[in-house]
């Protein structure tokens, strides 16, 4: 379960302060899929970073499975992220010097888990034939499928996706989305997805909108 209590995040830019998030509170149940919508600069990615423990709130608390992230040291947050969180990004962020299989094995190795599971995940995303290929030889859709396999291979409790289909064509996007939906439902993973896409949002159990750093559940048609 993800619990966000009264989160704010302020950035200092020279003499000015910019409030990226303003008193955001949200609870996401285990296995639930939540979509975050919003215009550019509305604070979506900031919120994702806070949930993933790669940034700290100025005020408020981030609690995941009863553990308060903002009270952890940086090292503890890294280990927490390693075990409990998976990330999917618009630009895939695969390791270019590792093969497809090695990319998927990486989280297992970091968590000292059996690396054989990587093959199963690759099979599930339909890329077994590309296991020894380097990422730059794959299409965008294939790269994102590798990213999904890598994000889920160690069975994290939370999966955070930032515009997962933003860099894909319609067909590839549909494929990736289907795969993502199936896998999180099967594994019971909580998914928080940031998107501009109506199709992606339709995957969610609940949809929230971030507008100028404030969270609402009122979907403004303008967003689409």
């Amino acid at each position, binding site marked *: 379960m993800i619990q966000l209590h009264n989160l704010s995040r302020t950035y200092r830019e020279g003499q000015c302060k910019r409030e990226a998030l303003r008193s955001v509170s949200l609870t996401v149940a285990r296995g639930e899929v939540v979509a975050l919508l919003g215009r550019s600069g509305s604070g979506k990615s900031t919120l994702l970073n806070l949930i993933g423990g*790669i*940034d700290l709130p100025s005020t408020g608390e981030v609690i995941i499975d009863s553990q308060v992230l903002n009270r952890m040291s940086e090292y503890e947050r890294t*280990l927490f*992220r390693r075990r409990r969180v998976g*990330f999917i990004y618009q630009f895939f962020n695969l390791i270019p*010097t590792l093969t497809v299989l090695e990319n998927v094995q*990486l989280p297992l190795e*970091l968590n000292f888990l059996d690396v054989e599971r990587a093959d199963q995940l690759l099979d599930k995303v339909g890329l077994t034939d590309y296991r020894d290929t380097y990422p730059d030889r794959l299409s965008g859709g294939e790269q994102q499928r590798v990213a999904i396999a890598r994000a889920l291979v160690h069975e994290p409790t939370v999966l955070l996706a930032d515009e997962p289909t933003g860099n894909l064509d319609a067909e590839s996007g549909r494929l990736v989305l289907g795969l993502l939906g199936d896998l999180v439902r099967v594994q019971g993973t909580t998914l928080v997805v940031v998107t501009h896409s109506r199709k992606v949002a339709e995957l969610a159990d609940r949809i929230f909108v971030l507008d100028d750093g404030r969270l609402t559940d009122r979907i403004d048609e303008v967003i689409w």
Partner: protein
Amino acid sequence: MSSLSRASLRYLWRHPWQLVLAVLGIALGVAVVVSVDLTNESVRRAFDLSVQAVAGEASHQIIGGPSGLDETLYTQLRVELGMRDSAPLIDIYGKARASTLHVVGIDPLAEIPFRGRFVKQQDAAVRTLLSTPGTVLMDASTARRLDLSVDDRFKITVGGHAHEIQLVGLFGSHDSNPAALDSLVITDIATVQAISNQPGRLSRIDLKLRNDNGTAAVLKRIHSILQPGARVVDAESRSHALLQMTRAFRTNLTAMSLLALVVGMFLIYNTVTFAVLQRRGLIASLRLLGVTRGQVFRLILGETLLLGLIGSVLGLLIGFTLAQGLVHLVTRTVNDHYFVLTVGELVIMPWPLLKGLALGVVATLLAALLPAVEAARTEPHAALQRSGIEVRARSLVPRLAMTGLALTLGALVLLVLPSRSLLLGFAVLFLMILGLTLMSPLVVSWLTHAVLPLAGRLFGIQTRLALGGVVASLSRTGVAIAALMLAVATTVGVGVMVDSFRSTVEQWLSSTLRADLYVSAPGLSTIRPEMALDMAVLERVREVPGVAAISTGSQIMVESDGRLIELFALGLGHSILPRYPLKAGDPGQVWPAFLANRGVLISEPLAWHQRLTIGDLIPIHTDTGIRAFPVLGIYYDYSSEQGEVLMQRSLYEQHFEDHAVSALGLYLSPDADLQRVIELVRDATLDTQYLMVRSNRTVRETSLAIFDRTFAVTNVLRLLAVIVAFIGILSAFMALQLERVRELGVLRATGFTPGQVTGMVTAQTGFMGFTAGLLAIPTGLVLAEILIEVINRRSFGWSMKTVVSADVFLQALALALVAAILAGLYPGWRMAHTPTARALRQE
């Protein structure tokens, strides 16, 4: 191997140029240090071996003055004192088949306790030495080198006289240290006395005294029979005093090599920084996946360690090759200035190699520490933003400059401390260099901002983009400029120092060398007239038409306060006045006192080393015992680092049993023809000994040639520092090319031609080179002042006038500019010719 390590290694493999440049940079830095260390160690080892070869098991030695010992002393020792553990020895240096040979005359019957190996193995041959004059033994490898077999006869030249001798036996190669015997020729005492024209004389008598309570009593008995001027010395301390003479020279070489390593460290820092910057996206991805800061840190350091190890091992190989060339240069310098060294081969010892390896690895890790910390400290989301790194780098620039200023001030404080420590001198040098280097990024930033508006207006958008790129990528360009600046400053500093030194020596030579012609017997040293002239030579030369007056000179080594120094006995002919330029003392008072034998003059280095001034007494071991001579004046002298005493011939002969003369200065009558007189002198002395008759101009030219030869090693090291910096800047531009592919792709898409892109890159590299050259000038001048006023003064005691020519500035600018433009050519070409579509796809 873990996936993390695999990812890291494959990254290196995918960027072969950067990998090669980084490894080469480390390798060259290590190579310079290793080569100088190996050379220094080889010189020391060669010296030890030379000493060991003939010193044998002696605990003490009886030595005499310049003419050695009378051999009757040896008879007295054995007969009157019953000292069986004593062995006489006479040694000289000669030339045979273009090789220098150390010819040692021994008494084979007394040798077994001392140098048993020469007599044990070659009983029959040793008997021949005793029975047949002119017969010698030689080390087998030396014989092979000279293409000699047993029973062969060959010519050996000693002091201008050629003698025929016969090889009658070889030493076995099973000797515990064959290198110790290299170039060693063993013969009977009588043979050496004959070929060196020293009948009845010995160089020394070796003694083997037990280290017990009775030693003092034995020494007392020996002292009771010693001839005037003879004394007993500890064998080890004698050789130590001799080796100490080269200490400052070797220290300076080591410092130069360390400077190259510092430049190498900049290069490594540069390389690792680029490797981190280029992989910030990858590092961010790893951090998102849960890779800890410690793991990132270890990853970068592990990678660098590997580079360091490969580079260092390669450095050892290059260093070894380089040292083979350097050892000959250094041996030549040691022979020119210090003592005769017959072993010129490189000796490989584990210590310099281990030191080089450790230094390379540690330097690499130290250089990588900052980038590794930077990589580890980066937050995962921040790592994805490239601008963040530049923002941080820019905020670091003023702090670096402040640290640099503090270091520079620290160096100035150390400078004013009343100390003569050479080590402290080097600390000042390195602090100053580091301080000024740390300030350079701030100056680059200021300079670029100052130039940018005008350059933009004059040369358009291309130049504005090029210059703007320097400041925008200060984290990379700043380091590249600093590394190049440091290397060029080193060449400026050392160049100004060498120029100043050369100009000072040139002036000194013209004011010191007053005679029209100089006559000496050829010796092994090109500088010191060390071989005695035949007595007949002086008489015959005096008769040569056109010779108006003659001065005589003898140069010998004497001991003063435990140090070996040179003594020059000057015999002034009628109407010749001494013209030595004085550093201290009124010429009007000094020279009349000198001519009246009221004391001696000492050279500037001697005054410095022994802290002597006018009016002090300088103790000198003479043939009449230790005598203290008043110091009348201090003169400039650049011929001897250890220092020299100038004594009038008549005073010298009062204290030394030596009537030999080793050099003549001929003053010609105004109407004499120089060439004609040279021919006449040669004709007149044809049947005496082979002589070198050189004009004033030739001596001056030869001296300056030797000066240039002395600094040949320095020039090699300077060149290497520039090569290291060149590799650094090439590596920097290659990395920049990788960094900016997308940015340049955008420029190409908006209409920049490949030529414009190349022009822009060249403008940027040119500006960086120009800036580095500009900053190198003041830094180099500061470096030169420290080298001249601190390092040289504390090492050698020489004072010199700083001479700065405009050439030095132009050379610095040209060097930096050319290095930078050359280094930017290939990356520029690559940038311009990368397909635009591919460049735009780059993430």
